[in-house]
Structure formats: structure tokens, C-alpha cells
């Protein structure tokens, strides 16, 4: 049944989108599977369990942090009557993200077993998340199309959501590290400096080093 629901989500029309509860189940299980694969690639079972908890947590917490402002923006833009539909669309997109991450997990394990280069492994992770995001965008665009046709302001609200979600999600992902074990750090749920660093500052520092 869960496979039929996943197929409906990925292939079907908007009317065939699974119920919210099924979407949550699909998204969470896919994310957990991806987390399991990420953590297991280090050979530490505890890391696999931690990552299986943290990947779904990343998506859920990011959405929870961004939803209040999405609600306000929708109301200010005069889109409140469609808010339930907009939320269903976002939920379908998140479920697709989870399903895609889960589907890519075996391939990720297979490819990461063949390399020891940490940069190559990071690149693989980025590719996995990139592909999952692309799939989620496809489903989101399909669900949002009638809403945008009904009121073009939905496009603005959607862009706002995407920017805020990416901005918050990146920092939360940084806080929830490690998803994959790193030599010399041992097994830990969160790093000691989890709440000390800022992903964007680290990124800027990396760029600054490139120019020096």
C-alpha cells in the first residue's frame, strides 16, 4: 500500500496525491532510510541510528520554524483561502524529497564504499540532496500550478518559502551534524560546537581562503 501511495505521489495527478498522514509517513520513512545509509557508511551502527533520527528531524524542524511566517505572508498577500491547499502542496513536496532520498540511499552506500576521499563523499551527499530537491520541486510545481493560475501572488509566497526554508534548513543541518562519521571525532549525536558555529560564516571563511 505504501508503495502504491509513493507511486501516486510521484506519478499521479494532483487529485491522486496521498492523504497528509500517508505523506508524512512516506517522507519520514524515506528520510530515515537516507539517514541510515549516511550513518551506516561510517561502519558505526550508533551513527546510523542517530542519522536516521536526525534527517527526518531536519525536515520537520525546518518546516516548523518557517510555517508561522509562511502563514503570515500568505494572509498578507490575500491567499489565506488557499492556505490549506498550499500546505498540502508543501507536504507533498516534502514527502517526495523523503521518497527520493530513500530511493537514492542504496546507491549512495554503494558509491561511498568505493571511495575513501572525504571530498568525494561530500560531493555524493550533495548530489543526493540536489537530486531529491529537484524531484520535490517538480511535485511542488505541479501542485502549485493551479494555485498560481488562480492567483499569481502564490508564486511570490512560494519563492519566499523556498528561500526561508533553504536559509533555515542549511543552518539546522549544520547544527545537527554529524550525519556521517568523521575520523577523530568519535560517535556523538551532536558535535560539541553544534550551537557555536554558523554555517554561513564557515562558508564565507572557506570562500575567503580561496581568494587568499
Amino acid at each position: 500500500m505504501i508503495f502504491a501511495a509513493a507511486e501516486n505521489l510521484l506519478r499521479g495527478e494532483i487529485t491522486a496525491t496521498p492523504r497528509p498522514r500517508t505523506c508524512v509517513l512516506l517522507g519520514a520513512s524515506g528520510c530515515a532510510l537516507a539517514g541510515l545509509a549516511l550513518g551506516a557508511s561510517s561502519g558505526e551502527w550508533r551513527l546510523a541510528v542517530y542519522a536516521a533520527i536526525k534527517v527526518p528531524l531536519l525536515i520537520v524542524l525546518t518546516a516548523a520554524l518557517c510555517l508561522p511566517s509562511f502563514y503570515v505572508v500568505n494572509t498578507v498577500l490575500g491567499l489565506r483561502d488557499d492556505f490549506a491547499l498550499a500546505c498540502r502542496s508543501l507536504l507533498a513536496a516534502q514527502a517526495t524529497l523523503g521518497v527520493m532520498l530513500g530511493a537514492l540511499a542504496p546507491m549512495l552506500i554503494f558509491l561511498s564504499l568505493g571511495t575513501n576521499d572525504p571530498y568525494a563523499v561530500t560531493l555524493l551527499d550533495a548530489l543526493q540532496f540536489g537530486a531529491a530537491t529537484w524531484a520535490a520541486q517538480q511535485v511542488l510545481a505541479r501542485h502549485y500550478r493551479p494555485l498560481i493560475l488562480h492567483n499569481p501572488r502564490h508564486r511570490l509566497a512560494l519563492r519566499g518559502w523556498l528561500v526561508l526554508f533553504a536559509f533555515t534548513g542549511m543552518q539546522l543541518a549544520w547544527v545537527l551534524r554529524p550525519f556521517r562519521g568523521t575520523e577523530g571525532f568519535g560517535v556523538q549525536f551532536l558535535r560539541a560546537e553544534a550551537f557555536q558555529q554558523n554555517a554561513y560564516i564557515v562558508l564565507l571563511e572557506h570562500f575567503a581562503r580561496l581568494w587568499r
Partner: protein
Amino acid sequence: MSKAVRHHLALRCKAGIVFAMSANTPPEPRPSMLGMLDRVLRGGFTQREVLAGGRIEVPVAGLVRLSLLLGAGYGISLGCYSLFGGAPQAWLQMLASALKVPLLFLLTLVVSFPSLYVFAALQRLPLDFRNTLKLMLLAIVVHLTVIASLGPVFAFFAASTTSYPFLLLLNVAVFAIGGLLGLMVLRRATRDIFTPPSAAKTTAPVAPPAAVANPETTPETSPETPATPAATPWPATVTAARTSHQGAEQARRLMGVWCCVYGVVGAQMGWLLRPFLGSPDAPFEWFRQRDGNFLVAVLSTIGKLFHP
């Protein structure tokens, strides 16, 4: 009890009965805070038909209370930086931020409103002093709601980063996003005020340009079409479109001036009322010494991100 007092009470009683009898419909229940906020955000107080009367009916006291709550809410999320950073007087900083955010909006309104009203009057905005103030209050509520809704995001960043310059810039960005949405509501309302409902309704079926360009088909000369009673040679739809266009132009001009005045005063007021976050390297203080200005501070903070 004297006779005069008894007579007065009897009159008041009669008046009460008459009033109660005349009011056939039961009194409307007072809207809840959330209901009121919802109506503000949905533009329920700034509908075109309502604005056409030149009056904005809003529960001012309720909106002021709401603004205080929303501002304090965002102030608390600002204070989270001190709390999570382990500052010695974190609770005091949280309290200071919760008080200062509403104060920032209040003082900005007090300082800038006279000039805003003068500019509005110069642009012939058909709202009196009181109603212009109510319009501003609505925009402020929208601004505060947006920043309060971004409060959880800010609190999360405050908990997960120690970079003071990053959070300063994030705070500026949050205020800017709220300001943009507040301005959007204000712009929509001013455009509706300048464009009467009749003009707005008739702008959709604008006469095709050929009909205007060809004198033989204009309403004045066409034998089939009765002549328009208006003195203008333009068809009613085109006149309405021009009125609508002029209204939009007036609204745009007014918004440009309002934006500059309110933005400059607000930014500088924020600078005067700092610290909102509380620097981790400095002890708690309610206000800092007056030096520099907002723009220089933002540029220097961006520089600090690269060279901490």
C-alpha cells in the same frame, strides 16, 4: 435622595430602555485579538469600498495592545541571543529588547507622523489626520506580525550561532522583510484610496485604442451611440482608466516619500535605541552612547563578517 436626582435617574433609565428597544440587533461581540489580527492581515479594514468613504474603522486600542504584544514577542526572540550565549544579565537584556521593539515603532511613528501627514495632504490623500494615523497603525501591525512570525527563525539562529555580526545583519534583514510587507499593504490601501471604486470597476473594459483614435466611431459623432453627458471628449471607460492611472501615480509618489521618511527615521531610531541584541563582549546596558549612524554601522558589520 433629592427630587432632582430622582428625576435625573428616571430620565437615564427611560433613555436606556428606549436605546435597548431601538437596538433590534444584539450588540456585536468584541473581536478576539487573533480575530482582529486576522482581519488586519487579510485587509479587512482597508477594503476599497470602506476606504472610499474616507474613514477607516479600526479598534485602535485593540490594535495598540496587539502591537505591544507582537513587538514584545519579537523582542524576546532577540533576547534569546543573550540567554543562549550565557550573558550574566540575559533576562534583563530580554526584558529590554521586549520593551524596546514596541518603543521603536511607537517613537518612529511619533517623530515621523507629522511629516508623513503633511506629505499625504500635499498629495491630496482624502484622509484626515486621525484616519491617516489609523492607516499607519495598520501598516505597523502588519510589519510587527511579520517580524514576530520570523521570531522562531531568529531565535533558532540566536541559539545556534555565536557570530554577533551575523545576527545583527539577520535582525536588519527581518526588519526589512517586515517593512516590505507592511509597505505592500500600505501601497495597496493608498492606491485604493486614490482610485474611487467606480473608476476601478470601469477600468477593466477599456475602450480599444482604435475607437478613440477614429473620430467617426467616438460616442459624440456616432449616430448609433448616444452622446456622453460629460464635458470631456473621452469615453467614460477611458476617463475612468485615466483616473485610475492618476490614482496609482499619486499613490506611488506618496509611497516613495513615505518610504524615505519613515525608513530613515526608523533606521536611526533603531540605532539610538540599541542594543537590541546585547554584545557578548560588553556588559548589559539599556542604551549606548550616541555615535555614528545606522548606515555606517551596517556597512561596518558586513566588513566584520569577513574580518572578525
